[in-house]
Every structure is written in C-alpha cells, then in structure tokens.
C-alpha cells in the first residue's frame, strides 16, 4: 500500500449527510459551560466561608479551655473571620453581576468576563489574602502550643516540631499549587475565550 492507496480510500470513505445543527443546543452548551463554572465558584465560596466560621468557633472553644493566657487565639479568630468575610463578599459580588435569562449574549459574556477577571485576580494574589492569614494563624497556634508545653515534653521535641512545620509548609505550598494550576489551566484560557467572544460580538454591534 502506498500514499495513492491511502488517498483513494480516504476519498471513498463514507460520510454522514445532513447538517444536524441544533443552534439552540449550541447556545445551551455555551450556557452550560458558564453555569458549571459558576456552580464550582459558588460551592467553593460557601465551603470556604463555612470552614472559616467552623474554625473560628473551634478557636473560641480552645481559647475558653486554656484561659486568658491564650488571648492570641483571638487573633486567629479574627484572621479566620476575615477569610470567611472575603468569600461572603465574593458571593454578594457574584449576585450583582448575575444577568437574567432574557439578557443578550453580549450581556451574558460581559457578566461572565467580570466574574472571570475577579477569579483570576483572586488566584494571582492568593498569597496575600488566603495563604498569608493561614500561615499567620498556624504560626500563632504553634507558638502557643510550644510556649505552654512542659520542658522535655513531646510538643517541644525538635524533630517533631520540624516535622510539623514541614507539614504545614507542604499544605500551604500544595494549596498555592492548586490555585496556580487552576489559574493556568482553567481561568486564563476561559478569560481569553470570553474576551475573544466579547470582541467579536462588539465588532458586530
């Protein structure tokens, strides 16, 4: 068999006839993509806000149990409440950007773009608003534990302490990596796709 045989059989290959184009289905497909992303963001916001509140309450119990000398737990509670606040604010902003089902495609794309830009900025600055408070909270808790531990206790064992710090840093780095990967693989490509679509729609209008 040679190239000419390949060409011949290629040209004889049976192909389905007819358009089979359901435009409303395509429109739905575009909207499904938007809805999927919106649902992912919504679940993340509620989960993170809820987790922040649970940690705050847990910190309150720990503070109450150890007494006033553990006052730095108040700082951790403030940091966790702040984090929850960020996610609650995100939900409120998302509501502001939402458009009705009768909105034009351009309006929908503009709304999606606003959400996407916001998500990109959050992911780019994740160190500042998410990881730094987390690191601070972990550091404060670790200092309190070590400070109140009896000399020679397991809490002050240098190897255990090093292992604990290493574990915390690994969790922080993993969280950063997840954010960076999402930014690179999902958010930026979707942002570029939406910007292209917005430009095309605007050019037409």
């Amino acid at each position, binding site marked *: 068999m040679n190239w000419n045989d390949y060409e011949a059989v290629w040209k004889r290959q049976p*192909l389905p*006839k007819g358009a089979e184009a359901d435009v409303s289905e395509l429109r739905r497909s575009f909207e499904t993509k938007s809805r999927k992303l919106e649902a992912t963001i919504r679940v993340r916001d509620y989960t993170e806000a809820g987790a922040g509140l649970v940690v705050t309450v847990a910190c309150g119990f720990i503070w109450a149990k150890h007494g006033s000398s553990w006052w730095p737990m108040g700082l951790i509670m403030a940091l966790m409440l702040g984090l929850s606040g960020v996610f609650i604010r995100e939900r409120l902003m998302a509501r502001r950007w939402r458009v009705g089902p009768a909105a034009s495609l351009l309006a929908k794309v503009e709304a999606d773009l606003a959400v996407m830009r916001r998500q990109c900025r959050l992911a780019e600055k994740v160190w500042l608003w998410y990881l730094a408070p987390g690191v601070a909270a972990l550091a404060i808790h670790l200092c309190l534990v070590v400070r109140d531990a009896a000399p020679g206790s397991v809490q002050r064992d240098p190897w255990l302490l090093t292992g604990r710090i290493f574990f915390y840093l690994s969790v922080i780095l993993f969280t950063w990596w997840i954010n960076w990967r999402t930014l690179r693989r999902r958010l930026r490509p979707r942002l570029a796709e939406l910007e292209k679509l917005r430009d095309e729609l605007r050019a037409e*209008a």
Partner: protein
Amino acid sequence: MRSDIDHTVQFKAWLEEHRGILVKVERAYAATAADQADLQQELKLQLWISLRNYSGQAKASTWIYRVCLNTAMTWRRGTARREARIEVGADLDRTGDEAASPAQQADDREMLEQLYAAIHALPEADRALILLALDGLAYREIAEITGLKENHVGVALSRARQRLAAQMKGVIDELE
C-alpha cells in the same frame, strides 16, 4: 450588522456543505464513539461562536479546517484522552457506501480502520498535515491552516508521510 438569523442560516449551510471536514477531524482526533460525539459538539460550538469572526478572506473550507483542527488539539490537551481502542469501525458501519460492492466495502473499511489507527498514533502536527494532504488540499491552503511557511509544507509533509507509512506497517503487523 449580521443578525442572529443570518448567522444561524449561514452556520447551517456551512454544516450541510462541510460536515465531512468535521467528521474526519472527529475520527482523527477522538478514539471512542463517546469521545467523537463530545468532540463533535465542541467543534460545532466553536464554529458557531467563531463564525461571527469570518471575514471571507479565506475559503470557507480552509477556515473551517483551521477552527476544527485548533479546537480538536485544544480538546485533546484539555481532557487527557486515552488512546483507547479505535472505534472508527462502528461509525463506518452506520454510514456505509451503498454504491460499492460488499467486498469493496469490506476492503475499504479495513484499510480505513488501519489508516485511522495509524493517524491516531502520529504526533499532533503530523496528524493535521496528513489529514489535510489526504483531503487533497494544496500546499498554499495547508500553509494557511497550519501557519507553516508554504515552502516548508513539502518538507514537513514528506516527514509526516514517512511516519504514517511506518505506523501503517506497525498497525498491519499488529493485526497480523
């Protein structure tokens, strides 16, 4: 300004005329029937969205090929597809050429299966080149679609053909 109705009418007319391009790209880039259906939906969606951007400078088929190949490559990267058993055969059964004799149909089907299996095993760039060359596109059109310089298309295509021949030999040996 082109209205939504014009857009839809043109899109349907294009699909009617150039459906074969989409089907060939689906078969070349997706192995299973489910993946082919998924890629088909993505190709149609991207064509529908991109149609607004078509200026008419390039031939419609050239432009459709460009959108389809770009979409197929992105689709593959984004979804970690497995090169599972090629299911082109099942698709061919449904769309058999009734004019040919049964023996000819069987021969064609076997060769097409081997050809698609070999195409699936090629690197992405070669896959696109082979697809375009098998469809009989001129070097100028291939250059326009792939972004290669026209005088480089011949060299790249010659290498891609050699790789295809090697793959075909491998596929046939495997089947025997």
